[in-house]
C-alpha cells in the first residue's frame, strides 16, 4: 500500500512540487506499478547484483590541461548571470 503521505515525502525528496490532484493520481498508479515490481521478490538473495554490463575499469588519460568552455559559453543558457557568475536562489533558509 502507498499512502498519500509517502507520495508527498517522495515529491520532497525529488524536489518536484505536485498538486493534490497529481498526488492522488500518483498514489493510485504507484500502487499498481509497485505491485507489478513485486515479482522480483522471488529472486534469491544469493545472486550478485550487476551494476555495469561491461567489465571495464577506469580508463585513465594523461593529466594534461585541455581547452574547456569559455566563460561566456558556460553562461550562455543561464537566465540570470552577474559578473561571470550564475545567479541562483538563496540556499540558506
Amino acid at each position, binding site marked *: 500500500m502507498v499512502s498519500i503521505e509517502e507520495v508527498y515525502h517522495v515529491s520532497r525528496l525529488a524536489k*518536484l512540487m505536485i498538486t493534490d490532484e497529481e498526488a492522488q493520481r500518483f498514489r493510485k498508479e504507484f500502487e499498481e506499478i509497485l505491485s507489478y*515490481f513485486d515479482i522480483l*521478490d522471488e529472486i534469491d538473495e544469493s545472486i550478485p547484483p550487476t551494476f555495469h554490463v561491461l567489465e571495464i575499469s577506469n580508463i585513465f588519460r594523461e593529466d594534461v590541461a585541455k581547452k574547456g*568552455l569559455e566563460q561566456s559559453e558556460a553562461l550562455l543558457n543561464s537566465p540570470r548571470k552577474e559578473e561571470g557568475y550564475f545567479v541562483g536562489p538563496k540556499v540558506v533558509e
Partner: protein
Amino acid sequence: MKVFEWKNLVNEKGCFEAVSELIDRIERSKLNAYITICKDEALRLAREYDRGNLKGKLAGIPVAVKDNITTKGIRTTCASKMLLNYIPVFDAHVVEKLKSEGAIIIGKTNMDEFGMGTTTETSYFGVVRNPYDLDRVAGGSSGGSAAAVANDEAVLALGSDTGGSIRCPASFCGIYGLKPTYGLVSRYGLIPYANSLEQIGPMAESIEDLALILEVIAGRDERDSTNSGRDFIFREEKVERIGIIKNMDASEEVMNKFYEVMSNFEYGEIEFPSLKYSLASYYIIAMSEASSNLARYDGVRYGHFSPFLTSWSDYYSRVRAEGFGMEVKRRIMLGSYALSAGYYGKYYLKALRARTLIIEDFKKAFAKFDVLVSPTMPSLPFRIGELKDPLTMYKMDVNTVPVNLAGLPALSIPIGFIRGLPVGMQVIGNYFEENKLLSFAKIIEENI
C-alpha cells in the same frame, strides 16, 4: 529512400535542389517528425557539396538527429518544455563524426520527452504520426527519426535506445534500426536518461546504409568513460545457428507473420526463465537512474526558469514542476521512491540481481546460437491515445528491454505488413557481434 537512390537524385539535379525538395517535403508533412529544421545550414552545405567542397563517407547525405543528441548552436530540447530554448555550446561525439564525414544534418527529430515513452505521445511538441496510418503512432521514443526515414524526410537518422527506443519505432515505421553493443558508440553529448542502459544507434532503409553510418559513429572517445574504444567495419559473416526466444510476447497475427518468415530458415528454440523479471528490473533501473540524472535541471544554469527567485528548495521544486511533463514526473518520483531509505534493498538491488539472471540466460543462449530472434513489438502500431495507463504502456517494451539490461546489440528488421501496417523482427547478437546481426538481416532483406 536508400543512400544509392539519394546519390542518383543528386547526380541528376544537384545536391542543393535535392535538399531544397526534401525540406519542402518536411515542411508540408503531417507526421510531425521534426522539432527543428536546420534549413539554412543544410542548404549552405548542399551548395558546398555541389562546388566539390564537401567530402567524406556521408558527403551530401541528409541525416536527421534525435533531439536528445547535442548539436552546437542548434536548439536541443529532448522534446521537453524544460529545454525549450536550450542551445548547446558543444557537439555530441556522434555529431562531430557525422560532420567530419560530410553529412548534412537536416534537423532535430521529435521524441518522447527525455526518451520516456513508447509512442512519442509524451513529447511536448505533440505525437509523431505513423507514415502508414496517420491515426496511429510512429512508436517511440525515437519516433521522429523513424518516421522521417520512412517518409523520405531524411535518408539516414540517429536515434537512441534505452529500452527499445530505436527498435520500436523502426518496427512500427517499417525500417531498419540498430541498438549497438553498450560501449560501441560514445554517449558524449547524449542527454542522459539512464546511462547504464542507453546507446545511440542508426536508422535506415537498408542494411548497407545502416552499416555505413554505424562505421562513422562507432569508435574511440575518451570523453565517455564506458566507451569500449573499438571501431566498427562491416564485413559479412556466416550465421549458421539461429535461435528463437520462445517465450517472447506477441499477438497471434504478429507471431504468425514472424514464424512465416522464419519458416525459410532452420532454427532452434530456447526459453528464457528470467524473462518474467525483465520489465520490472528494467523499469526500476531506468527510473532510478532517471531520478538521479534529471536532478541537474535546476532552473539556474540552463533550461526552464521562473522569474521569481524564492528560497532554493521552493524555486527548484517549482521550476521542475513547470518544466517536466507527466511521464517524466512519474519516473522521477518512482525512481526516487525506489532509491529512498528502506526501499533500496527491495527494489533497486533486486532489479540488479534480476539483471544478473538475464545476462546469464543470454550467455547460455549464445553458447548454442549465433543470433537470437523474436518479434520486435508485441503488437501492430497502436492508435493514438490507445494506451491509457502507464503500466500497459510499459508492458509493450517486454521484448526489447532484456537487450539493454544485458548491454547486447539488437536490430529491428522490417518483415512485411499486416493490414497495411509494418511488422518488425528483432535480431539479437552477442557482444560486439554487430556483423553477425547485419549479415543475418541481409539474408532476410534479400529474401523478402
